[in-house]
């Protein structure tokens, strides 16, 4: 087609979320934390397991949120980093008998390196092109895990079984409950780290790049460095989430880490609100529970019901859970005035 209209002014693809609006207030945070601490005391083991799942998937959504909501880059390759984290943890635990507490940071660091390196060629790409590149990574990963010469460690198509750790120091709690608190502690630590990261110099650099890359580089932000750094941090956190999932599910296999997982994480981010970190847990809840609800409504049409529910959510709150939070805040403000 014509090449006449070269100059295009585009609205930025990702909304500019100011950094104050990225987190919860102190009061709300404490309430949420107390709830998360108290719930397992009153729940059955299966529900505790689901809550653990909620936490580590929330962590993975948070990682994508840092990348997309923070630095404005889009990725469909999160499942690949998740897979690497899960496999590194599983292999170290089973083949080398390393304690699971040590496996997670190693998985995180390895994934950080992997993401940082992947960020290099991805630097020249943006938008749909970046989506395609990360998509390639996600489709390649399950096949790479099945390769013959890795089979000795990865168990090939069969996958690996991971032993569930017991509660240490003779604490009187079930394995599931211990795992829940262990996951909660890690997720909390990473959440605090992420909030601080986005408030730091690096976080401001991410957001400057998200809002306008050219302006950011004119202000002296090293665009290449911070873009790859965002990829690295996001991949590292996703890797830890993958490691936690391997421990909680007690099983890793190549086909649990397909592109579907990346798409779920993406949906989680949209439902939770792009760029709003606490929304990640809401998004995770959506991707865990809504498919179950859909299945409950109609077995044959579960996909269609899921789609309709998703449409409902994005019609009502196009900005995700963040919008609900803002509306709530305004309501509280109005009540205080009266």
């Amino acid at each position, binding site marked *: *087609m*014509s*090449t006449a*209209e*070269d*100059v*295009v*002014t*585009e609205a930025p*693809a*990702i*909304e500019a979320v100011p950094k104050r609006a990225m987190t919860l207030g102190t009061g709300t945070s404490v309430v949420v934390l107390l709830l998360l601490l108290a719930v397992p005391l009153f729940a059955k083991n299966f529900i505790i397991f689901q809550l653990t799942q909620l936490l580590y998937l929330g962590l993975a959504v948070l990682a994508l949120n840092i990348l*997309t909501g923070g630095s404005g880059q*889009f990725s469909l390759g999160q499942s690949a980093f998740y897979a690497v984290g899960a496999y590194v943890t599983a292999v170290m635990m089973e083949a080398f008998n390393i304690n699971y507490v040590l496996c997670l940071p190693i998985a995180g660091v390895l994934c950080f390196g992997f993401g940082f390196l992947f960020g290099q*060629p991805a630097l*020249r*790409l943006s938008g*749909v*092109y970046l*989506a*395609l*590149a990360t*998509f*390639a990574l996600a*489709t*390649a990963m399950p*096949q*790479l895990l*099945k390769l013959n010469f890795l089979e000795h460690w990865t168990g090939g198509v069969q996958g690996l079984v991971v032993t569930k750790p017991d509660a240490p120091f003779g604490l009187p709690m079930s394995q599931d409950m211990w795992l829940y608190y262990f996951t909660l502690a890690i997720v909390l630590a990473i959440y605090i780290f992420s909030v601080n990261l986005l408030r730091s110099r690096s976080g401001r650099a991410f957001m400057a790049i998200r809002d*306008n890359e*050219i*302006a950011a580089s004119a202000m002296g932000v090293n665009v290449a460095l911070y873009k790859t750094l965002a990829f690295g941090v996001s991949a590292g956190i996703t890797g830890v989430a993958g490691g936690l999932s391997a421990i909680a599910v007690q099983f890793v296999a190549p086909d649990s880490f397909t592109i579907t997982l990346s*798409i779920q994480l*993406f*949906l989680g*981010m*949209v*439902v939770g609100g*792009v760029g709003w970190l606490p929304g990640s847990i809401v998004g995770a809840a959506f991707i865990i529970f809504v498919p179950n609800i859909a299945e409950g409504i109609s077995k*044959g*049409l*579960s*996909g*269609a*019901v*899921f*789609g*309709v529910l*998703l*449409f409902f959510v*994005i*019609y009502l709150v*196009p*900005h*995700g859970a963040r919008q609900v939070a803002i509306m709530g805040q305004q309501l509280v403000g109005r009540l205080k005035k009266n």
Partner: protein
Amino acid sequence: MELFTNQVLAGISTGAIYACMALAVVMIYQAIDHLNFAQGEMAMFSTFISWQLMQWGIPYWGAFIIALVFSFIGGIAIERILFKPLAKAPVLTNVAGFIALYAIINSSAGLIWDFTIKQYPTPFGSSPFLGSQLISTHQAGMIGVTVLLLLALYFFFQYTRIGLAMRAAASVPESARLVGINTSWMIALGWGMASAIGAIAGMLIAPVVFLEPNMMGGVLIYGFAAAVLGGLTSPFGAVVGGFLVGIFENLAGTYIPGVGNELKLPIALALIISVLVVKPAGLFGRQIVKRV
């Protein structure tokens, strides 16, 4: 050398499938500026409609035309009902909407026509084409239709008033509105055309991959890849991209040892990405200059 030519020919014939799909992808990208993830499912649904019509005794071309009209109207309806309300929502929310649409269409088709594989007839026959074992008359016909479609689109966009209006609405919506173009309906029209082109692609592909609700999964990915490789702004690029992806994929499967069917896709994608690193807007895409 003979192996090489044969593989290239086979690549061209699979490439025709991707080219068709890529053309539909580019069409909608031109109209709405997003990649529509539900495109393949929409095409699959149209193909099922034509199959159902043929089961009811309507001849091939009759079913073909009815399915085309149905997809055109269906595409417009989807835009008006589902996506117009989302026009002001953030881009990523729209993408989530595409995923929802994908789930809805896929699951409904599964319920209506179930997941068993069905034969789909071809109007071109399936004997060897010009004595070559690699390209059947159906595949030759497919390439022919793709080229015809491309020509028709070229004339439509270059020489008709409405084609011009669509181009204007897509590239500078503000100014287009000022000169009296109804940009909102141009988007709907874009959806309708993309949906109809997708339906043609689906009906041409179905005899090769057989008809079932998940038939488009793989094809759509290659179609996206082809569209991106050719440059998302150029229908011609999309068709060239489609043939190139087909050839890439076949050659990688033949010449790189240890590449089974599974690794063909990642390798093809990796090649495309290396092309994109050198030419970030695709082979024939228009460089977008950003204003600060």
